């Protein structure tokens, strides 16, 4: 009797495990390398769509901050990237693709690597999410993920104020991305992100844009070394100073 019960329990356990694995596998898998989508569906084009070109609902004081920044950098055409600084959200996400993006997915964390400037975002789930007061504000913020059916919803907060990208924002901004997978008529795997940013300090209403990527089969990212020339130049200066002394 006990033997039969034990067998039943073991079978139930195995079935439960199998069901658990099955459930885990039901989530869409975004793992892979992605580039800008340029296929025929969705009106073509791979860059951001929706907000680009449209006037952003910026508040006056935010507009003034942006104009002051632009006046400062315009003469030399300076940009953060020219100084080896990553774009930060949402520009890092919307601009990725020309330089590819890699997604590494596991149940409790999704890691997104944007090749340009080696920008990395980590999307946390469940127990890996830390309390808001422990989060360090960064240019890419702190991202928490959840699933709504087959859609991955990522909410990003704890951003630093930035006027040096298209979607300027304050440190009060919240960015919500809704990721979904589809396949176009050519069989290309397409990843779509619908981005909405709300920021009561900078905007009178939400700013939104849609971005699409195509999967690169067997694709890979390269390391983006950017500071080495500055370091080598510094070493040369040190050597010259040493020679003079």
């Amino acid at each position: 009797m006990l033997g039969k019960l034990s067998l039943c329990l073991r079978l139930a356990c195995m079935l439960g495990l199998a069901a658990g694995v099955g459930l885990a596998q039901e989530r869409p898998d975004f793992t892979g390398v992605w580039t800008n989508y340029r296929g025929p569906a969705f009106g073509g084009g791979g860059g951001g769509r929706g907000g680009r070109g449209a006037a952003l609902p910026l508040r006056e004081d935010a507009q003034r901050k942006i104009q002051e920044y632009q006046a400062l950098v315009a003469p030399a055409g300076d940009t953060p990237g020219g100084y080896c600084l990553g774009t930060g959200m949402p520009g890092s996400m919307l601009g990725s693709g020309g330089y590819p993006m890699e997604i590494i997915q596991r149940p409790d964390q999704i890691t997104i690597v944007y090749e340009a400037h080696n920008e990395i975002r980590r999307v946390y789930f469940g127990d890996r999410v830390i309390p808001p007061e422990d989060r360090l504000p960064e240019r890419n913020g702190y991202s928490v993920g959840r699933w709504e059916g087959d859609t991955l919803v990522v909410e990003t907060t704890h951003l630093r104020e930035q006027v040096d990208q298209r979607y300027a924002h304050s440190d009060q901004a919240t960015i919500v991305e809704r990721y979904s997978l589809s396949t176009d008529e050519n069989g290309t795997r397409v990843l779509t992100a619908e981005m909405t940013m709300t920021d009561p300090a900078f905007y009178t209403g939400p700013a939104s844009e849609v971005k699409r990527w195509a999967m690169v089969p067997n694709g890979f990212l390269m390391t983006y070394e950017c500071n080495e020339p500055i370091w080598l130049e510094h070493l040369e200066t040190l050597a010259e100073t040493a020679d003079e002394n």
Partner: protein
Amino acid sequence: MKPAHLALLLIVLTAPVAGAHHSAAAMDFANTVEIEGIVKEIQVVNPHTKFVLEVTDDRGTRDIEFEAHSRNNVYRAGYRDGIVEVGDKIKATIAPMRDGSDGGYVTGFETADGRRVGLAN
């Protein structure tokens, strides 16, 4: 060339401005020109590759500094270490400065032995 590599190369070739870190507004990507020059300096680095070419035209002979894409994208477009050395003569496709001054953006080039980087074959 594998399809994945070709796809990435095409992106490099068709969207040079999108990946540029400096403002590209000063350069005319719609009206590129072909030039020949002797390589005086080449630094294939991020965020921008730098060329200094000795160029001779109707304004005389002089060294001109050009910018090009990042090390990562230049490699994707076919560049490999050692295929261009100081002293080599190269043909380059340039997005010239809109104001007519010296300089511009190298969108592709052909080495002395016929290797093409970032140019349609």
